[in-house]
């Protein structure tokens, strides 16, 4: 998908580790890692709210849109 997650940059700017952010937000490191690497399919508003609260930013700082073809749908695997 052409929606990129900018967690890497925000974490560096806030000098915060992924583990610390996961603890503060209340999700597992594994799930946050899925989000960070762009493998997530969707983000809950509650997670986005907690991320914005802990990183002191707006949703638009975390998610950016890049023009381009969408990535292949994983639903057609089966």
């Amino acid at each position, binding site marked *: 998908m052409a929606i990129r997650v900018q967690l890497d940059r925000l974490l560096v700017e806030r000098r915060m580790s992924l583990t610390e952010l996961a603890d503060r937000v209340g999700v597992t490191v594994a*799930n946050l890692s*899925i*989000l960070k690497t762009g493998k997530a*399919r969707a983000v809950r508003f509650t997670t986005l709210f907690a991320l914005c609260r802990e990183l002191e930013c707006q949703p638009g700082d975390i998610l950016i849109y890049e023009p381009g073809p969408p990535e292949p749908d*994983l639903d057609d695997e089966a």
Partner: protein
Amino acid sequence: MFRLPGLPRLNVRVPFRPPFRTLGPGSVSSLLKIALDVAYVLLMIITAVLLLVLLASIFIPIANLNITVSNESGGRQQPLTRPLLLFGVGALTAYFGGFLLILRNLRMIFRTLTLGDPFQPDNVRRLRQVGLILAVVTGGVWLAQGVVAARLAPGVMERQGFGELLTPVFSVLVVFVLAEVFREGARLRRESELTI
């Protein structure tokens, strides 16, 4: 929605919930899994014995053997030829072998039900295989019965009509639809896993 005027609207809902667990360890699924395991072993033995008989029927002497084809009004005898014997035993072996493969897939599906995690992508493939094998086996039985009625027992056994295929076709379609239901379930499961 069409409703007859003057009739009181019945708004009674009876929620049905089975008084037993259907998924997970110690549930009805695990009991059915045990039943499938037993049936699988029995079918494996039967298929193995039939395979041995099929191999033996290539070599055993059958010069003086006859078979009797009969119904209520009488019957007739005809010599047992080797192609006839091979056809009979081969058809039986294929029939039981087909159901063995179906049971193998069903056992694997029920294993996931016992674990409480039915919507796995592998179950979609297994259900599609069950549908395909069921179609081949029931179609094969229909054809074999047609051959027997036309060649071996003309006048004694009636030919199968297309009406006989209705139930098998319906069953096969239901299995394929179920496979699609599982595919949708697997998709939702994956989407849920990847929702943060």
